[in-house]
């Protein structure tokens, strides 16, 4: 009877593994790289912080933990009595908080047994007690991969840890590990002794041929990981903060950028929208090659650009939100058809925006415009394309007061959350019901893209320029990207941003932390698009910026840039 059950159990496991297509993989390189031991020295104290001699380009990132080791008792020879060495004394832990060129700032974590001194050695993730909490029941293989791949950590027994782990991840009361590796069905999170997030990796299945599946791998399926941009506690400039190329041959103030395979040739093109035209070019490894431009009808003014392949023909269409010369919505769709780019849909009467939805991908959403005083009228809804016409589909549920622009959805711990740019410029995290969970410490966003409302003009009021909220994009890892522009941005009809950066925020379940940003510079960051890495390539960012001009009579210089984020 038991033998029969065991055979049946094994068969079921094989069937499941075949269906899921999971196969065992070695420990991902990113995890090994993130926890590779690196040594350095304490340079000096700086208030409550300590400066260490590891900085940008030396493999460390904000959030890394270092054991501080100082000389302990002298070791004397039992016969000669001579000092033959000193014991190593672990004084405490330091967390890297801000990366600099040649050095970094760090801050003690927990108690420090002895004062940390200049010259003390620091060892990243060396000899730290680590535990795996597996909430999937299938992480034994991963635990073994971690133990063999990261032998410098002091691993607790997997089975024992499983018995003692809390029902939901929380700082341990009875155990005192330094590193928690918490495996859920969606992520592998690594947290420090204070339960601060250090790294997060999404867990995804990788299709494998059925012939490779074995009983062993099926019974203990490994969950391969995709590395992500390392979250950290500070706002440090990290790898990927500088563009890998920069094309500054554009004229005007961009209002948006979209990337996709527009002509179906298997290569990626970029479209850059200005208020009066859409420029299209090819993205190469070393730059942007212009292919041409499509001008809007005379007097029309574009204010947003998005791209999606709604008709699933393998060629991404462009969707331009625009107002015509009389101030009425008149968006267009541009498509590569019969060998050239054409306007295939015109007079679109909605605001349009694509949003990446967890588990669904890129979808086109819309919202109505009401020229009688409601620039964003009614609920946001999905858009379907039939032939060369767009139709309104089902309402897209969003918390109250969230309009089409300036939000993104992301998954966290099994629920969908909303990252939204508030009216006052702060980035907030909301539940689906609108409850605010956290907000950014500083204002972000800010655009110069606008459309004009003239509903009060005929009765003696002033035209009102409605500036769009900046694009907010959630990565597949649940991080949130948003631009941060500063400058002249408070006047109703005159905006010029002169300083910008792109910021990455991480939601750790409690707080919204800025974890990364591009190098701040004197420009206006009009829009950006995240290009997730495929086939092992690194993820990339495409941005469009405009540079300040003191002469309002001349067009500003604009630039399209690409950043390599250093991770797939």
């Amino acid at each position: 009877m038991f033998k029969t059950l065991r055979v049946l159990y094994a068969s079921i496991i094989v069937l499941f593994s075949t269906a899921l297509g999971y196969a065992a993989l070695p420990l991902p390189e990113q995890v090994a790289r993130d926890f590779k031991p690196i040594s350095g020295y304490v340079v000096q104290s700086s208030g409550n912080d300590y400066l260490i001699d590891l900085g940008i380009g030396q493999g460390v990132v904000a959030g890394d933990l270092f054991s501080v080791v100082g000389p302990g008792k002298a070791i004397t020879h039992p016969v000669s009595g001579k000092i033959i060495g000193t014991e190593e004394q672990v004084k405490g832990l330091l967390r890297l908080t801000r990366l600099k060129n040649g050095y970094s700032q760090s801050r003690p974590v927990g108690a420090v047994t002895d004062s940390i001194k200049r010259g003390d050695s620091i060892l990243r993730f060396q000899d730290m007690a680590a535990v795996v909490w597996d909430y999937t029941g299938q992480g034994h293989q991963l635990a073994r991969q971690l133990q063999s791949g990261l032998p410098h950590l002091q691993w607790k027994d997997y089975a024992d840890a499983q018995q003692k782990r809390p029902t939901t991840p929380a700082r341990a009361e009875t155990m005192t590990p330094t590193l928690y590796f918490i495996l859920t069905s969606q992520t592998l999170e690594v947290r420090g002794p204070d339960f601060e997030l250090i790294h997060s990796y999404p867990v995804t299945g990788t299709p494998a041929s059925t012939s490779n599946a074995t009983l062993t791998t099926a019974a203990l399926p490994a969950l391969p990981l995709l590395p992500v941009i390392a979250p950290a506690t500070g706002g440090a400039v990290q790898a990927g903060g500088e563009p890998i190329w920069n094309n500054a041959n554009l004229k005007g103030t961009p209002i948006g950028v979209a990337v996709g395979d527009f002509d179906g040739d298997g290569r990626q093109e970029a479209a850059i929208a200005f208020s009066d035209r859409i420029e299209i070019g090819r993205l190469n490894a070393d730059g942007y090659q212009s292919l041409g431009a499509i001008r809007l009808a005379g007097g029309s003014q574009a204010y947003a650009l998005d791209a999606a392949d709604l008709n699933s023909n393998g060629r991404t269409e462009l969707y331009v939100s625009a107002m015509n010369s009389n101030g009425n919505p008149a968006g267009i769709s541009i498509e590569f058809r019969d060998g050239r780019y054409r306007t295939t849909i015109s007079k679109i009467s909605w605001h349009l925006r694509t949003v990446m939805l967890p588990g669904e991908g890129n979808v086109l959403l819309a919202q109505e415009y009401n020229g009688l005083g409601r620039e964003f009228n009614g609920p946001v809804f999905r858009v379907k394309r039939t032939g060369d016409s767009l139709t309104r589909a089902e309402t897209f549920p969003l918390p109250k007061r969230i309009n089409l622009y300036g939000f993104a959805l992301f998954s966290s711990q099994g629920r969908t959350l909303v990252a939204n740019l508030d009216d006052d410029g702060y980035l907030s995290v909301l539940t689906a019901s609108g409850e605010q969970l956290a907000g950014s410490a500083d204002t972000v966003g800010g655009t110069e893209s606008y459309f004009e409302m003239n509903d009060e003009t005929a009765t003696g009021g002033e035209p009102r320029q409605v500036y769009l909220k900046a694009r907010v994009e959630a990565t597949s890892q649940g991080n949130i990207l948003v631009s941060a522009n500063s400058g002249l941005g408070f006047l109703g009809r005159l905006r010029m941003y002169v300083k910008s950066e792109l910021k990455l925020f991480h939601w750790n379940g409690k707080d919204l932390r800025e974890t990364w940003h591009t190098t701040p510079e004197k420009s206006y960051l009009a829009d950006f698009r995240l290009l997730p890495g495929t086939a092992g390539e690194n993820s990339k960012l495409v941005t469009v910026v405009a540079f300040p001009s003191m002469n309002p009579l001349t067009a500003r210089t604009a630039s399209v840039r690409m950043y390599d984020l250093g991770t797939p």
Partner: protein
Amino acid sequence: MKKRIISASIIAAALGLSVPAMALDVTPYGAIRVGTWWTSSTYYNGQNALHDADFTLDLQGDSLVGMRVKEGDFSGIAEMGAYNPKNRAGGVELRMLFGEWDFGGGKVRVGYAPSPYVFRSEQTYDSDGGFNGYGSLWDGRYAQIKASLNNGLYLTLKKQSTSNTGGTSNFTTNTGPAWQNTPFNLTATQYAATNTNYDTYLPQTTVGYEGKAGILKYGGGMAFNFYKVTQTTSDVVTSKDEIYSYLGFAHGTVDLAPVELKFNLYTGQNVGNLMANSGAATGSYYFNRHNAYTYGGWAQVGYTLNNKIKMFTGASYESNDTKESKVDDRMAAFANLQYAVSKNFKIVPEFTYLNDLRSRTGAKEPQIYAAGVKWEMTF
């Protein structure tokens, strides 16, 4: 007026100071507009025509600074500006001060704002006059409560008008000094054997609708105002008038981008009494116990050449008739070109022609040819 200005300033300052705490979305804005005009007029003394020609350069009356605030479902506007050059001695003018509550199904506005039947053209002469008094129902701004629904219907309860000569409303004469120049000075508080008593019962009421059908945006409605005037001389009532004002109005915009057509039409009884418009024709007022009947309107064609240049031309006409005397009519026409030098700087060369035709007494009235430029900077 000073009280209004002080109140607006205090509100603006309070809003500004409370920004960090209340996380308000505060947006200041403004516009500076200067007009440079060469005018040539012909006016009459009986049948004798006289002429005058001048150049003027002055700040337009719609130069302003304002602030828009928004917090959740509530928003507000405080706007102050220069008086029209003809009333520059008035100092700074409160242009708008209102709060608005967006309750989902519509909005409620409470404050000081233009009347809903105002619909102006693109004519820039006379401080962006927009055919004011020549086919446009401009009557300034008044305290009001306006409820508008998302389906386009609206109701406005506005401060009542008691004007019978144009300009500001008339008031009961036997009010005490302490009540002068307040909203209460329609209520007598001091005995006088000879007095003029204005009695009002209801706010000036407007119901209307704004809608859209394809390329046509349209609106229309009705307005009503009523008051009594009783003249007493040596304790003897010498005259008693009940002045009923009605107004029916319609306007629309046809979007044929790059062409735009606009029109405004209205008709009514004692429209001058309803609107207290200093620019209105005298023939639009109740006169000698006769109601004045008015109809008028304007039409305009616009064409957008490109992102820099728009062109407009239009004409207007208004007729006022008390059936007792002559028709007081007038007309105007204009053509201009709006050139956007930059996003925030626009110049508008224009040619305008105004002709007051004849008064209600049948006398010939002035006509003006004007050529000039509006210089506008916005922020």
